[in-house]
């Protein structure tokens, strides 16, 4: 089996004084579906262009298949990039687009056409080879771009937010499609996105980036359930953040003194906290429950608004200036809606909450 790993060895990329990527260390395995997730401007596209060969790292090394890629141009690397706007060639037919990588390698016209037809079968669009690119729908263009990138069997396929231009329905369909294609061809996929839904549903592993720094790398469920930094906790999924100072720690549980009262949660990664340290407790909206009585880990709040969304109802509450969101599963019984301004008592289990050191959070 071919070595299709990508190794980032202390990679930093700087433009003048601006650091786009800061000391990235990462190993992406053969055949893995790996995503870089982060807000726009976090450096993920810069990193992708560095892997594909359009720019060189200021420091560190990029190794693909165990070989240092320094000085190797994009046309000599075993990578193929799918651009955000696909960059299909509008003056060529679909088949010519797909066979372009073969054309520049000197394949005969007959071989090119044969390979284009094979790839069109693979992306389930047989018989559109003679169409113009402008005649295709968004999803078809998407799949043609993938076929073109796979025409010469690259070891690594890099995808730069390829689904962002599609509508929601198509995007969801293409997620499944991309995953299926990846499993069929066995190529390493490196996927760039700011859409956490895409990253979590498709990837084997996700790297969350912020301001040029890789904050956490892990499987989607780990990223979601056990965030390691305040940024990851606030960026991935909905989360309520309650800031406060450490009051005490017993084994894995940390208690914080916060404006909403004392609350406890898990210490992320078994970390030790000093008393008085500034921290944040994160609790997901679906882990907050409405309860009648006060007790440990309860918060008295005022209801601000609520929205019925079919399967669940979203509540927005407020306690001492801290906004809290709740997500209640609807059971089917027609419960009387609460009036805004109603007093609520919220409760959560400490093992569902995560305490993390204070740090930058994702903006809403």
């Amino acid at each position, binding site marked *: 089996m071919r070595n299709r790993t990508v190794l980032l060895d202390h990679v930093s990329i700087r433009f003048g004084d601006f650091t786009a990527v800061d000391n990235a260390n990462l190993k992406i395995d053969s055949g893995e579906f790996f995503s870089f997730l982060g807000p726009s401007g976090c450096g993920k596209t810069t990193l992708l262009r560095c892997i*594909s*060969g*359009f720019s060189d790292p200021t420091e560190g090394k990029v190794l693909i298949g165990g070989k240092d890629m320094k000085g190797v*141009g*994009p*046309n000599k690397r075993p*990578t*193929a*990039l799918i*651009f955000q*706007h696909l*960059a299909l*060639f509008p*003056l060529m037919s679909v088949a010519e687009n797909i066979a*372009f*990588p073969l*054309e*520049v*390698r000197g394949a005969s016209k007959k071989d090119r056409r044969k390979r284009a037809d094979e790839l069109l079968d693979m992306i389930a669009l047989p018989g559109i080879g003679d169409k113009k690119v402008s*005649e295709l729908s968004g999803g078809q263009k998407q799949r043609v771009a993938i076929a*073109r*990138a796979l*025409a*010469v069997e690259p070891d690594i396929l890099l995808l730069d937010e390829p689904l962002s231009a599609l509508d929601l329905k198509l995007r969801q369909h293409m997620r499944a499609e991309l995953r299926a294609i990846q499993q069929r061809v066995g190529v390493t996929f490196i996927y760039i996105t700011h859409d956490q839904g895409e990253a979590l549903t498709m990837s084997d592993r996700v790297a969350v980036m912020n301001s040029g720094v890789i904050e956490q790398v892990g499987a989607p469920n780990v990223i979601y359930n056990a965030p390691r930094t305040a940024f990851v906790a606030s960026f991935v999924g909905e989360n309520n953040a309650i800031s406060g100072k450490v009051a005490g720690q017993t084994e894995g549980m940390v208690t914080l003194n916060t404006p909403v009262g004392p609350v406890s949660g898990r210490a992320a990664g078994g970390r030790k906290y000093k008393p008085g340290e500034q921290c944040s407790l994160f609790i997901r909206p679906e882990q907050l429950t409405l309860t009648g009585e006060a007790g440990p880990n309860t918060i008295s709040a005022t209801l601000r608004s609520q929205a019925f969304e079919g399967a669940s109802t979203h509540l927005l509450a407020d306690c001492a200036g801290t906004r809290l969101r709740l997500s209640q599963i609807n059971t089917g019984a027609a419960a009387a809606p609460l009036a805004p301004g109603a007093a609520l008592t919220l409760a959560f289990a400490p093992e569902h909450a995560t305490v993390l050191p204070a740090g930058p959070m994702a903006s809403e």
Partner: protein
Amino acid sequence: MNPRGSVFSAAYALAFFTFLFGPLIIMVITAFNSSRFPRVTPWECFTTGWFNVLITNDRLMSGLLSSLFIGIGVIVVAVPVGLAGALALSELSARLRATLYTVLIVPILIPGVVLGISTIVFWGQIGRTLGGPAQAFFYNGYFLTIAGQVTFISAYAMLVFIARLQRFDATQTEAALDLGASPGQAFRKILLPFLAPAIGSAAFITLLASFENYNTTVFTILSGNTFTTALASKVRHGTDPSLSALAVIIISITLIGALTHEAYIRRKTLLDSGKAEQSAIFGNPVLRLLTHPGAVLALLLCIAGGLVWLGSKHDSSVCEAGILEEKRAIQRQLQEEQRSRIDAQKKAGGQTQTPAEGGAGNPSPFGGAFTGGLAPESAAPEPAAPSNPSPFGGAFNPGTLAPAPE
């Protein structure tokens, strides 16, 4: 709409189009009038003779050949230079780009006369320094004209390319590189096909600019002639309707080109819209064939060719001989009248001194022109027009109206 407003709009539109196309229409009509001077009235005879005069003018025809040769030379040099300039501009940083842009555009702003003279001086100097065959090569009208025109025409080509390049998506080139193309392949297979329409327009604009250029060319062509300089010197020595004939040819070529292009564009729009099959014209196979730009061009060329053939068969010599005869008769009559007047005067002069004779003896600075010499009844001693040194080379002289080719 207000009726007075619409009358005004219609009148304005009429005036505007008259202003635009009036000269062209008049010129086309004069090309077919046998009058020695280009004019519509008096209409003498319908003739196609001026076309013959035009194509038998060696100076103009050799000028046309030089113009074509120079035009092709300018295309070959100016289009690649302009393309290189535009590509360089698109790759540079903003500040460098502004500077280079100014440098490349300046030749357009410099008067053509200055470019012409400086081209001669510059290449003449290089030729003299090198000596020998190089001198003959560099100090040659064709070379100098191509060199002189390229200095500013390449800037026109560059502007065309810049406009097109601004619409180019640079990720196309990146995608090609990423898919394994070398930079050369990416240029040939992606950028060049994208620029193809611009290359066509640049070549066309370049050819036109070279063809019609006078200011620079009149210096750099040295003792030779291009079509434009030959035409200019012909006009200076007195014009005749063969220039109108030339205008007719140029207008016809332009019209044929424009109509063919329009047919091409309409067909392309229809095909791109994807509704070609529903269209009444495209659905019908005969009409579809007829509206094909190739068919339109062939049809127009057939019409033009037919008209040329008919025109070449037309013989206006009988009519012209008639007109000539008529004029001669008028002239004879005038001479007759004059002679009889002079005789009558001589008889009268023998008896009494007339004031006219006193006037003729008067040393007037106007040669007695105001003493009644212009009045046909008066007895001027001069035999009127024929010997008059006219500034129009006798073009208005009814005695020399025979259509003598140059």
